[in-house]
């Protein structure tokens, strides 16, 4: 097992960890915005780490180039998707947890 294999498996394991934590967060977090945050962790860092790990497994040929293209595409699109999701939720009038709890307090104070 040479050096590249070790680095690649470390990257893959880290990717799996972040993917898993994103999935846990998606189920356990309390409101929409925190959940989007968790999902975007899976989208961005987990995808980068896993494709990075796979890159080191190739023999630096056409497959490497294809993986780099996929990586670039994901780097551009998945943060945009998370951003668009969160922004359209704002546009639709969804409040964050802190905002809605402070609103509740104001209403109970009245």
């Amino acid at each position, binding site marked *: 097992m040479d050096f590249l294999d070790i680095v690649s498996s470390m990257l893959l394991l880290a990717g799996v960890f972040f993917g898993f934590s994103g999935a846990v967060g998606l189920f356990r977090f309390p409101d929409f915005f925190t959940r989007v945050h968790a999902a975007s962790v899976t989208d961005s860092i987990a995808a980068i780490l896993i494709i990075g790990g796979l890159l080191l497994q190739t023999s630096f040929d056409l497959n490497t180039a294809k993986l780099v293209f996929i990586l670039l595409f994901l780097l*551009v699109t998945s943060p*945009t998707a998370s951003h668009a999701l969160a*922004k359209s939720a704002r*546009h639709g009038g969804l409040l964050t947890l802190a905002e809605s709890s402070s609103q509740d307090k104001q209403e109970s104070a009245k």
Partner: protein
Amino acid sequence: MAEFIDLVLLAMLALTALRIIFLKDLFAVVMLFGIYSFLSALIFVNLDAVDVAFTEASVGAGISTVLMLVTLAMTGRKEKQSTHSTLLPLFVVLVTGAALIYGTLDMPPFGHPDNPVHQHVAPRYIEESPKEVGLPNMVTSVLASYRGFDTLGETVVVFSALIGVLSLLGVRRKKKKDLESGLETHSVLHVVSKIIIPLVILFALYVQFHGDFGPGGGFQAGVIAAAAFILYALVLGLPKAFAVVGPKFLQWMASFGVLLYASVGLYSMYKGGHFLDYNKLAADPIAGQHYGIIIIELGVGITVFAVMLNIFYAFGSQAERSNVQ
């Protein structure tokens, strides 16, 4: 290991299907359908059927999800409560299911090499197609050459889907008043889609013209190109998309694709062969096959692109209109 992956994917597929049946929120159902398509695409990849996986991912998970979402924008996202008794449907389903299972008992053993499916035309395609058609991607030779009639039929089906949608809905031009969809002021989406759309169209052209050598072809390429234009229409609004490719032009394009396909068949008849006999298209039969396949794939791509985009226009303009009122 491959069996284990298959098993996990099939289990996830079954779970997704069950969830789709029991959910009442149609928006979530559409999303689950997308997941369902991606899972089946993964199963197809695992079975080495890359072309089918590609189609499933682009058509099933991509364009049909978008079209379903646009439909939901018109109809609303809640399923109607059914007031009928469920006993009779349950009975019908049970009887049909039992009949189907009884029918499978007569099937030849699963995956056996002596099965008719492995003995009929498949060995001929595998052995002769490199000599007769000479394309590296055997799927394209079967789809476009041996099964050219079927593919012409499929293209006509796609075309008639457009006729159906247009005669039911029609594409409504926008009125003077501009809508605020919230997306028009969304600068991040604008910038990113400006980067992405040319790349997507480039990829669609690659899939179109590389379909003879790798996975891909007219169906996938048309859908991918339509997705690029749908992204443009979603981000910048339908009127601006109409300015780029209008619905009337798309109707011409859709019929042009089918006619291009059929005219290859007629031309080969004119040259003295049968309908869609590509061998007659050039002096060298193999070169004739290559010309024929490239042209009919182009016809398929044009038709699929125009039909998908025009169906989106029809649904989208209706949805915008109902939002105004």
